[in-house]
């Protein structure tokens, strides 16, 4: 094996480990919400994990800044919600969870994810 081949292998292995750690090893902290919350839709959801109370109505104001077609819809399937998110327009979604648990929300194609934790 030549030196350059060795270097390429090391870089590739480090790259694979880096990709794994960067994309799959992230940890998120839940934002505690009472009443309403703004979620910015731009390359994902900010914040992507929210904690809301059970038995009370929470309003989520989605605001899409990202023109990518992947993000043009948001789906909160547990609450049977599929809403179009027009670019640069605020869309209000109200949910009143009755049971505690963690519920995923995602874009229309299931590529971007967020979590609603009901406490």
């Amino acid at each position: 094996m030549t030196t350059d081949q060795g270097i390429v292998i090391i870089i590739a292995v480090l790259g694979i480990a880096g990709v794994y750690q960067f994309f799959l090893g992230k940890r998120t902290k839940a934002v505690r919400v009472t009443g309403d919350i703004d979620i910015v839709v731009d390359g994902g959801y900010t914040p992507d994990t929210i904690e809301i109370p059970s038995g009370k109505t929470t309003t989520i104001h989605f605001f899409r800044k990202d023109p990518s077609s992947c993000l043009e819809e948001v789906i909160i399937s547990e609450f049977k919600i599929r809403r179009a998110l027009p670019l640069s327009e605020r869309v209000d979604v109200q949910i009143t969870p009755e049971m505690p648990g963690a519920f995923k929300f995602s874009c229309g194609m299931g590529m971007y994810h967020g979590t609603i934790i009901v406490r």
Partner: protein
Amino acid sequence: MTSIKKTFAIKGMHCASCVRILEDALKTVPGVSSATVNLATEKATVDYDPASVTDKHLSSAVSNVGYQALIADEMEHEDAERTRKQKELSQLRTRVVFSLVLGILIVWGSFPGIVNTSPQFMRSFWLQLVLALPVQFWAGWSFYRAAFSSLRHRTANMDTLVALGTTVAFGYSVVVTALPQLVMRAGIEPMAYFDVSTIIIGLILLGRYFEARAKAGTSDAIRKLLGLQAKTARVVRDGREQDIAIDQVIIGDILRVRPGEKIPVDGVVTEGSSAIDESMVTGESIPVDKGPDALVIGSTINKTGSFLFRATKVGSETMLAQIVKLVQEAQGSKAPIQRLADLVSSYFVPVVIMLALATFALWYVLGPQPVLLLAILNTVAVLIIACPCAMGLATPTAIMVGTGIGAQHGILIKDAAALETAHKVRAVVFDKTGTLTEGKPRVTAVIATAGHTEDEVIRIDAIVEQSSSHPISQAIMEEAHKRNAVAPTSAGKFEAIPGNGVRGESDGKVIISGTERFMQVNGVDTAPLRADIDGLLDSGNTITIVALDGIAIGVIGIADTVKPSAHAGIAELKKLGVEVAMITGDHTRVAKAVATQLGIERFFAEVLPEDKASAVAKLQQEGKTVAMIGDGINDAPALAQADVGIAMGTGTDVAIEAADITLVNRDLRTVASAIILSRKTLRTIKLNLFWAFGYNIILIPVAMGVLYPAWGILLNPIFASVAMAASSISVVLNSLLLRKARIS
């Protein structure tokens, strides 16, 4: 700050001071930059920042000062959404044409086989760089933007892969163009690949264009339903007929509908009659005759006569609005079959990037010369061929089309899980009364014991029956009225025992009326009526025995007519290989007579309402997926127990809580249609998932070069982009093919 202008009508204005009050109220909404109100037109025009102001804010600002804002309804919202989509599509088309035209010019000057036909200047790498530059960073900017935004969130998607792949091809070509001696020193002939980067961008954008167009078709159903809504109504107020906007109709308004017009809202006919085409809401193709007291559904079309009706439901309460809401909710739900695709999608892109890195290293270390070039091209092919979109689109597009088709045929599906489960149904249980039969029983025979007359039996029974709302009681009351045998007083100590009968007291005497079992429980001897009871039961009558002070005085035979669509509905289910059963609280012999008439082999008779769920559970214990069909009111526990609860709609309430599927029309053939729809939708989903998974599982290794050692096959990145674009389009088009499916 971006600002948009909105004009909407205001209700309740009457003087000039209203203008100032309203303008002040609207201007105080944070984010509103200006507001003008016109008294003459009764309209407000507001400039505001859509990021902080919603229709609700404007509406509550207006209502807080005592007026009503009639802001864009859902239909207008839908129109605005469509206009915005069209604008986006047109911009996308410009980028597609731009990148493909420049890409083709570059291909002409560089692609082996045709390069010889191009003028010399077209072969210049510098010219190709100039042509490729705007494609990469203008037409392809959306990929970079999305990729950067995703990276900030430590997520990756399709755009990340395209941005990475094309940047690698473009970057390498820039190095070849600017520093050819560098690649020559590595033993590689300097060859630019601007054709790869530009054509990939052009084709993927073209794929997105077709995909966006096709995706718009998947939500056609909602748009069509909203389009049914009438815009105006002709109201009769103060003896005068006038046209008003639909949102100004209030409950209790008397409305006039002329031939050929749409019925504006739900209501009850008060005068006149007509044939009404309800096909757009119920799926029933034959117009229905309606006269006084008949229910009419908003958005259906009046064919022949002119009539007046009283509005009973308006706005979001109308049947059409409920249907739209149900379909929207179903489309927002997730089918269990989607879980695997969701799981794979969330790991997919990072895994593909890791595979691309591995591909580069493997080709660099183990590949033939020129190693660097082949390593780069195969890495680009891996990044470009991977298509997570096809997996993400496979299930939701089919669910959207499936639920939409259902709504057009009068089949309202509560959620995607119900649609998925319905394809497994192997046994269907029908509730008899009101589902297989019309639910309007009438008295067919009255038999009195010695010493009593028929009229006396009816008159005595009517004393207790008049306090009950049971259909059998109503049939007996109808007969009593016909015979002029209604007592002026009702029974004291009245009691209705569900599934058994009724009892009460009159003039100190106890009257009991109900089933044979009820008589036995109360110690009434039915032997004198034995032959009559048997005769009535064998001919399919439900019986009510009447006893006075513990002695049977007669028996009343009641029969319900079978629905005209019952025979065909059951035959179609049998054709699908589904076992059909019937459940009823009626006597076994009545049940047998009806079952025989309809060709139903299995029935559960004399089942109390609360035990119907147990009968469904019994079938489930045999390992069958069971659908229960009922009216959704008396049999709610059985509907909930069944794997799929199907309610036959009555009136204009479609959101039946216990039901997974609501059939808007009363045609029993629709049950088979619902199962066919579920089967076809699931077949489409499975085909989509098979294609989306199979595509990635097969072609990613091919792009990595697994076929190279044995057959010398490598995937050109340009062909990889063609395959990638085709894969997501094919999934959406396959879902759209469902629209052509015959389900009835």
